[in-house]
């Protein structure tokens, strides 16, 4: 699959959450609630976004291959940074009713139990946690305490590599049970199940965004550093040194403009040297720090 990265001006859109959803009917209530608009007409999968609120969504289609392909595709095409959270939400089978009950997945396996992932920071105050089994084919004999879907495992395995386990979330809504089996997916019913849960979904989005903000603060390269990187030639190891020393310097001297450190620098080495010199006066627990 050829992935053309979106040409971006500057740092590009600042996405917080990347949604991977199998069915259009699962996506519609979220598209509506988050005011997403269709974008990127040349993309292989349907893609929606809201750059203001930081949401990006891809509709993958049913099955693990589609879920894996769509997850990788959108990550590559939009150059998603490591602090972005990934959410897979959709319907699933469950032994017991009520239909429409929302779960967070704490463990996802394949049918034989040979592949297993433990995704997500657990939002147990918002919804119960359970186990998900991802099947290759639909089934209709559900074990107790286990959800069944056809995408979750592949999504979890890939998304956690692009970000981390704690920012990879799977939420499933019970669409059918042992006594109320789904013979054919009815898009209107699916939409209704999702719509019923939009209040909780809005809350979980807030929680997830708080984690994303924290991770972005930890991982993002400051604009001040980017300016210096564009001004001088830094080798890969010097770039790593610059980023580390800048973080230490910023913590020690939060009110000093960075430009003061490299005013007289003529090379990357000078910038590093100047930072090192300044840092010799940094000391832990100085008054006012």
């Amino acid at each position, binding site marked *: 699959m050829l992935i053309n990265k979106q040409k971006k001006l500057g740092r590009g859109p600042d996405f917080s959450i990347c949604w991977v959803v199998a069915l259009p009917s699962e996506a519609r209530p979220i598209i509506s609630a988050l005011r997403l608009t269709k974008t990127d007409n040349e993309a292989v999968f349907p893609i929606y976004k809201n750059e203001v609120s930081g949401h990006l969504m891809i509709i993958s289609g049913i099955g693990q291959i589609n879920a894996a392909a769509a997850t990788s595709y959108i990550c590559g095409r939009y150059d998603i940074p490591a602090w972005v959270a990934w959410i897979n939400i959709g319907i699933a089978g469950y032994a017991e009713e009520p239909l429409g009950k929302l779960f967070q997945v704490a463990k996802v396996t394949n049918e034989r139990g040979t592949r297993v992932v*433990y995704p997500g920071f657990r939002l147990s105050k918002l919804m119960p946690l359970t186990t998900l089994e991802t099947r290759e084919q639909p089934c209709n004999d559900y074990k107790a305490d286990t959800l069944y879907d056809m995408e979750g495992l592949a999504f979890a395995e890939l998304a956690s590599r692009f970000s981390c386990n704690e920012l990879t979330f799977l939420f499933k809504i019970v669409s059918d049970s042992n006594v109320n089996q789904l013979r054919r997916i009815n898009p209107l019913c699916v939409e209704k199940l999702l719509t019923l849960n939009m209040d909780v979904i809005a809350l979980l989005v807030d929680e997830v965004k708080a984690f994303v903000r924290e991770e972005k603060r930890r991982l993002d390269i400051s604009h001040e550093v980017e300016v210096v990187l564009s001004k001088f030639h830094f080798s890969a190891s010097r770039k790593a040194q610059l980023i580390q020393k800048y973080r230490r310097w*910023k913590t020690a001297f939060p009110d000093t403009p960075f430009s003061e450190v490299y005013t007289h620098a003529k090379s990357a080495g000078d910038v590093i040297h100047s930072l090192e010199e300044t840092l010799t006066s940094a000391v832990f627990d100085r008054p006012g720090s």
Partner: protein
Amino acid sequence: MIDTIFIEQEILDYERTKVVLSKFPRSRRIIISRYQEVFNKRTQNFRLQKKRPALILASKHKNFVLPAPAGFGIGTEKNFYFSHMYNCLYDCRYCFLQGMYSSANYVLFVNYEDFYSQIETTISDNAEGRITFFSGYDCDSLAFEKISDFLKNTLPIFYGRERVDLELRTKSVQLEPLLSLKPQQNCIVAFSLMPEELAQKLDNKAPSISRRISALTRLAERGWPIGLRFDPLIYSYDWKEKYERLVRSLLEVLPNGAIHSISYGPLRFPKKMYSEIFKLYPDEDLFSFSMKEANGIVSYGNEIEDEMSDFILSQLSGAVSSDKIFQCLSETQI
């Protein structure tokens, strides 16, 4: 609050598993094959996980008792440690556990009897001289006691063993079962300490120093031997005044003869561990100071380390007999 407990299939029917589970009636239980499948995954985010760690109940299969690292000890030649638990309730910014494990979840090994059996074997294999066992190397010895009952079960193993000591290393003010039991002279309750101002910034989620001092005073008054552990020594603005105040406040309240031992050691990290911890907390003030790297170890450097060691010794001299004071050295210093 622990909301999720992962349980190894193998220990589902253990009585101790059931007791621990009964303390978390509302938790979600998830069955796993082995604890490593949750604990050792490489894509975990320690920092986010630390906000709400899960508990993993597991069975340990080997390495119940291990030789303590060289330079780690309080006067005996033979030193061993055991870890019935990995990770800690507290979130101390200098702690090596942050760089050691990819997971912040707590692992509790419930097969205590296998630890006891290996402790017995270690004692018989080392029939000559004194031995010290250290608990609290990969966790806090007391902080999880209400859930684990580990000490309640373990202390009797050490009753009446004249040539065997047990050190419980802690920052906890949770003093049971110690307050309810008759003090054991071979069981040293060793409190990790640093100046209050520094602990407020670094010992996240841990009891304040004043509460730790109250706790160790209570234990000392009951007759438990007390260890004071200034490890690591933290270099900071006005560090001499801070440590002077700390030592003075300890010596003022501790009854004569209550101090079993004092140890101190520098802040040091293996280079890779330092790098891991820095990546987790790049905005931590503690790491702003220019530390030195030599032979794969990141430290304050010999000059500062020696100055801090000399100062601590000067504060203690006269008040505590020198044969009770020990310096913890890393392997590169020996």
